[in-house]
């Protein structure tokens, strides 16, 4: 079995959770308090991760499909795992479509979307065909680029004196109501709850003992970073402007004008978003393939290209970007708690009973 190290796992969690998140200014329903909503969601996200880690600890060498089977029985568990596969593919497709839309908006206005999505999906499929170890390594290689680029952007935003703390005031203008509404379930589902996908990857970890520690540390760190980015963009743009732009971070970076030279930094943002989207798309695609393999028991390589084709075909189902965003931000976020909260909780409960049984029988 392919193995990944704990630093690789940690980097995977970080880059995966960053993903395309800074692309959107999340939690806008709470207006200038979006960051508080983010923080609340991050805490709940960490709690969810506690559940996932607990599940994984019961059977350290079991993947998601195996866990489902353990808790729900052979047939029901297999079905649940298959539903997970469909969900992973769907989420992967959303990222493919995001790349298509982003490129149309920011870089190539006339190039047809099908070729753009085909290219990015080809890279993802190539990565998946090489396996988990290669994916972990490529994320490791991309991480310094991501890190340095974000630091650079943040530094320049501050040098250009763009963030104004006033834009974050007043705090809790309308009480806790809007904040809670923004945080649950939307922000929990995206991005924090998506760590559920690591149930597929954890079993490949070399240092099993470090699983919980590594995961919590990296997730806590990346949550803090996401909250900070949210505050930063809000303090640059303010709630009113954030609401009307489709890509707030891009908007904020476009405001940077320094020394008549550092003007057009959109390309860094676009690059960052591409990297994030690629990592997320590939992680979900790979998870779908790995889960399918575990459910059916057939060889890994048989699923790489079929799943890729399905993802590619599915990315044409939505007619336009508005529909894509509506489906993603309104419909999907209401359904995914099923995968992120309901199923894991059910497993947790079912497992507790089983353990009693096991303890009683001998």
């Amino acid at each position, binding site marked *: 079995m392919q193995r990944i190290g704990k630093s690789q796992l940690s980097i995977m969690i970080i880059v995966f959770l960053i993903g395309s998140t800074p692309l959107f200014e999340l939690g806008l329903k709470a207006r200038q308090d979006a960051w508080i909503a983010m923080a609340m969601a991050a805490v709940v996200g960490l709690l969810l991760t506690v559940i996932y880690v607990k599940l994984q600890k019961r059977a350290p060498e079991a993947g998601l499909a195996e866990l489902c089977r353990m808790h729900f029985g052979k047939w029901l568990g297999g079905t649940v795992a298959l539903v997970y596969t469909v969900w992973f593919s769907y989420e992967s497709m959303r990222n493919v479509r995001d790349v298509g839309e982003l490129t149309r908006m920011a870089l190539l206005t006339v190039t047809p979307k099908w070729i753009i999505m085909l290219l990015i999906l080809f890279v993802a499929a190539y990565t998946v065909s090489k396996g988990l170890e290669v994916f972990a390594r*490529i994320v490791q290689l991309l991480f310094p680029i991501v890190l340095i680029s974000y630091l650079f952007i943040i530094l320049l935003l501050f040098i250009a004196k763009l963030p104004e703390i006033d834009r974050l005031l007043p705090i809790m203008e309308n009480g806790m109501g809007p904040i809670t509404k923004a945080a649950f379930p939307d922000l929990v589902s995206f991005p924090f709850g998506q760590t559920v996908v690591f149930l597929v990857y954890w079993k490949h970890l070399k240092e099993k003992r470090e699983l919980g520690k590594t995961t919590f540390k990296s997730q806590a760190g990346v949550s803090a970073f996401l909250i900070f980015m949210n505050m930063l963009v809000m303090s640059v743009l303010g709630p009113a402007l954030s609401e009307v732009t489709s890509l707030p971070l891009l908007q904020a970076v476009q405001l940077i004008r320094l020394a008549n030279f550092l003007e057009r930094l959109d390309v860094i943002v676009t690059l960052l978003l591409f990297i994030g989207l690629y990592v997320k798309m590939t992680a979900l695609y790979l998870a779908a393939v790995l889960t399918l393999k575990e459910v059916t028991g057939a060889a890994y390589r048989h699923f790489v290209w079929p799943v890729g084709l399905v993802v590619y075909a599915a990315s044409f189902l939505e007619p336009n970007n508005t529909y894509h965003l509506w489906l993603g931000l309104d419909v999907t976020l209401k359904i995914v708690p099923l995968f992120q909260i309901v199923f894991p909780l059910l497993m947790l409960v079912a497992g507790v009973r089983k353990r009693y049984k096991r303890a009683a029988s001998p």
Partner: protein
Amino acid sequence: MERCRNAAMKKNAQKTLTPLSSSLKANTDAIRSRFGGSFDLVVRLFRSDAAPSRELAIIYIDGIVDAETVNVSVMEPLMSMTLPPHAHTKGTKLLDALRSCIVSVGSVGESATLEEALQAVSDGSCLVLAEGCTSVLTASVNGGEQRSVTIPQTQTVIRGPQYSFVENIRTNISLVRRIIRSSDLHVQMHKIGSQTHTDVAVLYLNGIVDEGVLKEVYRRLADIDIDGVLESGYIEEFIQDETFTLFPTVLNTERPDTVASILLEGRVAIMVDGTPIVLMAPITFFSFFQSPEDYYQRFDIATFIRVIRYAAFIVSILLPGLYIAVTTYHQEMLPTTLLISLAAQREGVPFPGLVEALLMEVTFEVLREAGLRMPRAIGPAISIVGALVLGQSAVQAGIVSAGMVIVVSFTAISNFVMPEFNMGAASRIIRFIFMLMAGMFGFFGLFISVLLMLVHLVSLRSFGVPYMSPMAPGSASQSIFRDVFIRLPWWAMIFRPFELKLRNPRRLPNRRKPAAQRHSDNP
């Protein structure tokens, strides 16, 4: 496995060995006829005082043996000396007596079959035959014309040893032995090539080498089934991990000090007779950016130059693509004044950016190849034609823009910064792919192709060692300090490369500063 065994069986089946006869004439005739009466085969029959009753013969090939040694150590003693009285000279014992008392060559063997004898003659040995003996002596007297050790042609350094390997494998091994004077330096010989029987030597430092890698090297060498090996490139293509990649996974050098240094790092060197180019494995992507001079110069300068090298590599693969992408798709990225000047230059140019760049790049590749193949005497003509006619005049004629000429020239010069030629060659091809993608999809195309290249790079292995280690997989501190980006001062380079599983990973047994810098020693 199955295929391997079949091949071995086939090999055995082909080899039907003929025993030698006891008649001297029959033996010499057999050898002469197997060589087809070749004119350079020397067969000398004679009688000597050593065995007055019997006829003797020596056989060798003129030109591949050292004539002096044959005369002084074989012919002369045989013709002039007599055997001591106690020596047995009856029947087949005669050869033993000759070997122990008369033939004064260092390495003398005995073979009993015609095929072995033929092989010995081809290898440059001198055969000694005697009437009534069913075996022959093979005295190793290799020699003949060969190039002497000269300064390196392709991997030059300013500071460091100024000699390189030659075509003779024995000389080459001795050059390394002179650097590493230790019994731990082991050399294993193989013969590869059903016709050429080329000597291939595997060198490693016992006690340091990664045993798994060594085993793998032997396995892959044993699997080679080819008629002839003329250069180490033949071996490289058989033993590399992946054929369909632009990136070399085996390092090569013509410098003995480089071989010594990689042996000290626990790697394996493979020498092939007939070429000064020695192969080294396993290596990583970053090995291609390390020049021997890095370790002879001051560490700070070496580090600076190494970073420049990485930058030059990135420039040499990306710059034309970036230029195409910016001028074709993303003009808004440039500061206004630069944009205006670029636009003014491109005003009269009839081609789109991609065509213009391809035109210039292909021209440059042609120039470069012509410069390599041309006789030395007309070399300078190339630079005049290249620089003046194709550069300046092409701009004046309005076929290409001045900016493009600058980009292409700088890219070309960056390409020459690579210490290893084959990595430079890879970057030339990658550059064209990047240019095409940039011409079609702008930045997005570049992003896709760079990403694809990175995924490919991390998927490669060299003898099982991940190509991008210690960066991926590996940790941040390893990739910074373990000789990837920073060349530490020698006293701080405590460990051998981390990516190998070495029995003895420490270069410096204990970590301490040099005596002059320790506090207790300072006044």
